[in-house]
């Protein structure tokens, strides 16, 4: 009996120690962010603020990143919605209207989500330049939608595969066509998957760096590129940097905190087990 209690205590101690490790970076960002400027000092970086809570650092960080936060929003909102619509259509067709090569086509599409984007970067840049979509947000949106096709198709296909065919056959009896079945039966049933895919694409595009840094010019930098630039700058104090980093991470963190259930499902879909 005592052995069980010892084990139980040990379990909690390890879990709490791990929790500290996982929370440490967020603690540092928040702690630094909420200190007044005059208390910022490397020696006391782990100490709690002594003169109450201030948001000077967050304001300074926001001033640095505001245009880029706006750029990221402008990119991510249309991107995640259009991605989800396209993925839903693809998923429906590949799950419920199988033709001879549909599994092969699906697998070939799926491969696109694993490739290192360095292997397509040179043609991509040349191509985007050629079609005059280089440098600005719309081009970045298009690129994210296209390279998002594999994962969005995968999530929707797995979801639709789980919906029985009986309901579709009933719809066919009533004379519905391929698109009719989608519009009146499948689409209304897809809300949970739309949540998963929109959240997934939102998070991915918000956090993405390579396409953003290569395909946009400075005026249209999303927040990841601006943050990286800020971190490399000698002119920005570390306290402002910590607060700015928190602001850059906040949208996806909030999504995770409030909609974590859906986020997790997108994550698991990436492991291919539908």
């Amino acid at each position, binding site marked *: 009996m005592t052995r069980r209690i010892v084990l*139980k205590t040990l*379990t*909690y101690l390890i*879990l709490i120690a791990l929790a500290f490790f*996982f*929370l*440490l*970076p967020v603690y540092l*960002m928040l702690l630094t962010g909420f200190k007044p400027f005059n208390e910022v000092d*490397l*020696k006391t970086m*782990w100490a709690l603020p002594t003169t109450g809570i201030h948001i000077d650092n967050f304001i300074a960080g926001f001033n640095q990143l505001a245009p880029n936060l706006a750029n990221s929003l402008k990119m991510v909102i249309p991107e995640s919605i259009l991605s989800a619509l396209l993925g839903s259509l*693809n998923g429906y*067709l*590949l799950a419920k209207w199988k*033709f001879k090569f549909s*599994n092969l086509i699906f*697998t070939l*599409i799926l*491969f*696109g989500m*694993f*490739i*290192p984007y*360095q*292997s*397509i*970067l*040179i*043609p*991509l840049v040349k191509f985007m330049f050629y079609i*005059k*979509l280089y440098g600005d947000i*719309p081009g970045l949106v298009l*690129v994210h939608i*296209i*390279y998002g*096709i594999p994962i969005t198709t995968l999530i929707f296909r797995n979801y639709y595969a789980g919906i029985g065919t009986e309901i579709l056959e009933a719809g066919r009896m009533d004379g519905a066509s*391929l698109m009719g079945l989608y519009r009146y039966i499948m689409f209304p049933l897809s809300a949970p998957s739309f949540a998963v895919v929109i959240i997934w694409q939102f998070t991915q595009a*918000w*956090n993405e*760096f*390579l396409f953003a840094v290569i395909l946009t010019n400075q005026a249209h930098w999303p927040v*990841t590129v601006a*943050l990286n630039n800020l*971190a*490399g700058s000698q002119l920005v104090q570390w306290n402002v940097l*910590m607060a700015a*980093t928190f602001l*850059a*991470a906040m949208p*996806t*963190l909030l999504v*995770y*905190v409030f909609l974590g259930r859906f*986020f997790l499902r997108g994550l*698991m879909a*990436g*492991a*291919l087990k539908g």
Partner: protein
Amino acid sequence: MKPKGFTLSPPRLILAIILILVGAISIFFLSHTTINFTGTNWTSIGLLASGLIFYTGVLVIVGMFENETMLSIALLLPSIVAVAIFVYGFIGWSIRVSFSKWKGLNPDYTWVGLKQYYDLFNHDPRFVIDVRNTVVFTVLFILACLILGLGMAILLDQRVKGEAVFRGIFLFPMSISFIASGVVWGWLMNPATGSRTAGINLIFQSLGLKSLISLWTTTKQPWGMAFTVIPAVWQLAGFTMALYLGGIRSISDDLREAARVDGASEFEIYRYVILPLLQPVTLSAVIILAHMSLKIFDLIVALGKGDIRLDVPGIYMWTTTFAANNYAQGAAIGVLMLLSVAILVVPYLVQNMRSETEL
């Protein structure tokens, strides 16, 4: 076989003609002018939209044939074409560039065979460092994620109170960008000494644990590279845990109960019943984690801030192509990265496809 007839429906035909005409006229219009709106050039997006309107008209006509396979393929076609160009076409183009001697702003497709690859492996110390760093990173990253992930999953499987809270804490870093993570961890793993001591070293110092004070990523290589794994593990150990926890929870309680009846201890149940059954989970986890680490890029950009000792192929490709204009070499690095991932992922995808086809 379904009947393959054709039903002419006048309203649908009129709709199709209107869509095709609207699409065609706007394509014609847009190819002779440019649209600028709120400082952005929308011409190409407009052309793309017009093309889609035109294609919708075509789809309406295809829909009048009573052949749903044809309609299904026609509806998939835009995505298939996009992936064919942006994934497979561009890979082919990159491979072609990697066989050239294109260096400089103007394309030069002069064929030099495998020279770029040969030079990378034989005359390029930087690439040798990259390969070594990738191996160090990949091995340590996967091992740490698997051990920590499995450990956390087993601990959470012990009917602990507040399981959901712990799970949430272990998983949230996954939602943060590699850039943000790299910036914060860069500060936590600050190697400065003396009065500039900061971050985790400062905690060690104030706790009197001077021996733990570390040079972090500036330690003599390759051990410095090993420290770059810490933020990556911070972000993905929770994901590995979630995979394992899902696997453990899908093992039926009856099986555990049977082992218990046979006199197995809790430890033996994990060792002989649960772990063997988790092998497929481990395989999935290894493939997902390995493909991430083989193409690791943004985390090292933010963490290493250009430190050549922490260089990885992803960064080398980026700088040699877009800073040094050495396109051929950049393409060769990109293709090598693709190969390393493909060796891992293609068998997995093929196996996945086979098992799907059997269903």
